[in-house]
């Protein structure tokens, strides 16, 4: 039996569930960020810095970054397995996506804890 070794959780059902769970987190984060920016049209640096200095906001943002990366991995995997038929090219593309996802996580942590 050929098993899927490049999918996120090596199980379609698990990937299906993770895609939904991370979607809910991203839904909440998107509503919060758009709402915050709409309600603060005169946003200044101190207020912005203070927002991201709070532990709750850092946890929420890191959760959103991790959710985005997992969600994007499952999505990019689905799209690339559908359209890139050559195994070598697909492997290179998926590796590049994995590298970019890893960079996002490290960059996100650096931004949040570098304030």
């Amino acid at each position, binding site marked *: 039996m050929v098993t899927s070794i490049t999918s996120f959780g090596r199980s379609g059902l698990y990937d299906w569930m993770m895609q*939904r769970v991370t979607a809910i987190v991203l839904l909440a984060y998107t509503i919060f960020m758009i709402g915050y920016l709409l309600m603060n049209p005169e946003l200044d640096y101190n207020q912005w810095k203070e927002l991201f200095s709070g532990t709750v906001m850092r946890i929420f943002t890191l959760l959103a970054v991790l959710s985005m990366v997992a969600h994007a991995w499952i999505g990019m995997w689905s799209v690339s397995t559908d359209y890139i038929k050559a195994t070598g090219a697909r492997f290179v593309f998926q590796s590049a996506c994995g590298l970019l996802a890893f960079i996002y996580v490290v960059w996100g942590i650096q931004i949040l804890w570098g304030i």
Partner: protein
Amino acid sequence: MPLPAITSILHRVSGVALFFGAIFMLYVLSMSLESQAGFDRAAEMLQESFLAKLIAWGLVSALLYHFFAGIKHLIMDLGHCEELDSGRLAAKVTLVIAGIAILLAGVWIW
């Protein structure tokens, strides 16, 4: 192409765009949080530069579309709108709501 197929392919296209567009989002977030000067530079860029506004609008559009198409997906997961007629209607509603939201976002950014 049937309407539900269009909403599906747009969901994929917007998702891929968001994954790569996150470079721009993190770049601006990083700049805006590094210092007062960085915050001013980010604010100025989003208020003065046509290209930055276009990228921002493009990404916000992709995000809004993906957001509403995602909600449609979750509703369908719960077993609704899976028949031909209701599926077409759900696709139409998704496109209209996303279209309105994208226009409003354009007004907001410009």
